[in-house]
């Protein structure tokens, strides 16, 4: 599974909360420019951490309840889950996103 998988609300528990590995959740929407731009970066990380970290995408339009539950009020938001709990989050796409994401993932491994 080296590509981020799009999941919906029903699958969130199983795919993210009960996962054995850390899971990076990319909260996004099609109308959000920076979300479209951050996607290749997330795909790059998905390849690099293949087998160690799972990568999923949650469309906040389709999964508004999940987004609300985790306090997502700005996208893109990347939340890293470990053992069912959010351990770190990155809001927006800036020049620091790449290094922050690497740091967060490495810390969770």
């Amino acid at each position, binding site marked *: 599974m080296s590509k981020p998988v799009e999941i919906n609300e029903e699958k969130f528990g199983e795919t993210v909360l009960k996962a054995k590995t850390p899971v990076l959740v990319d909260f996004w*929407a099609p109308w*959000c420019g920076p979300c479209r731009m951050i996607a290749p970066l997330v795909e790059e990380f998905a390849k690099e951490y293949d087998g160690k970290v799972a990568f999923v995408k949650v469309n*906040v339009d389709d999964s508004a309840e999940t987004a609300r539950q985790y*306090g997502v*009020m*700005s996208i893109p938001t990347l939340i890293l889950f470990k053992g069912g709990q959010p351990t770190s989050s990155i809001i*927006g796409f800036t020049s620091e996103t790449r290094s922050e994401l690497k740091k967060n993932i490495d810390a969770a491994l």
Partner: protein
Amino acid sequence: MSEPLKKYDIIIIGGGPAGLSAGIYTARARLATLLIEKAAIGGQIINSETVENYPGFTEGVGGIDLTQAMHQQATKFGMETVYDEVTGIEAGGKQKTVTTSQGKFTAKAIIIAGGAERQKLGIPGEAEFTGRGVSYCATCDGAFFRDKVVAVIGGGNAAVTEALELTKFALKVVLIHRRNELRATAIMQERVKADPKITISWDTVPLEILGDKAVTQIKLQNVKTKKETMLDVSGVFVAVGSQPATGYLKDIIKLDNVGAIIAGDKLETSMPGIFAAGDIRSGSIRQVISAAGDGATAAVNAGKYISE
């Protein structure tokens, strides 16, 4: 990581409309061209759903669509792209070196098109509530404020565009501006003033953003009467202008008092062989079309500099 030194004719720093236009011109001039972008191709304009004033698009064009096409166009002619942040430039001699966090690249000329970054308010609560009600992108985050009251801070084109965008979702939009007139383009002012969802708080500045889990209030002050008021809001959208991204350049080339690069009519900076294009240049009108024009001008003059 120490990568081998790679040599190019031209290095362009920044992948917004200025850098991409420069790349189209230098690549077509058969100059080996490298574009270095720190975050995403497109620059600030990717936050704009529709660009209405770029010539040739009667119905407007998406900010991403426009810049993606520019990138494909430059790439088609041979431009290479690296995603990394530039940390320094050495420009004394004929060969100029650009250092990024992952390696070094050399070129005969450099075009700096690093653009500008959204300015922050710098008031208490802003950093704390970023992503929890404080936003810098209405297109991205507007939908989270459906049927809520939101404030937009600023009075220029960015602020007015954000306010209009937010009326699609919000119950009410309060535009908070420190002056008694807007700086936005006339057609945008007309739209804002005609919109029943938008009210304007003139002569007003924000002092503090308050909340618990998310934003609940903003403290405002009238700059004339000094009277302070509280406004109940769920969101605060900040659009108070932008700051040129020139921190790493201040000891290398001449900047103006706000940190923008000073360049002459050939767009050459105080350092020979280094050119500036787009919003990062002092005097830029900060539009996609002027950025694109700057890119072409800088590219042609950088080409001449190399061949001289």
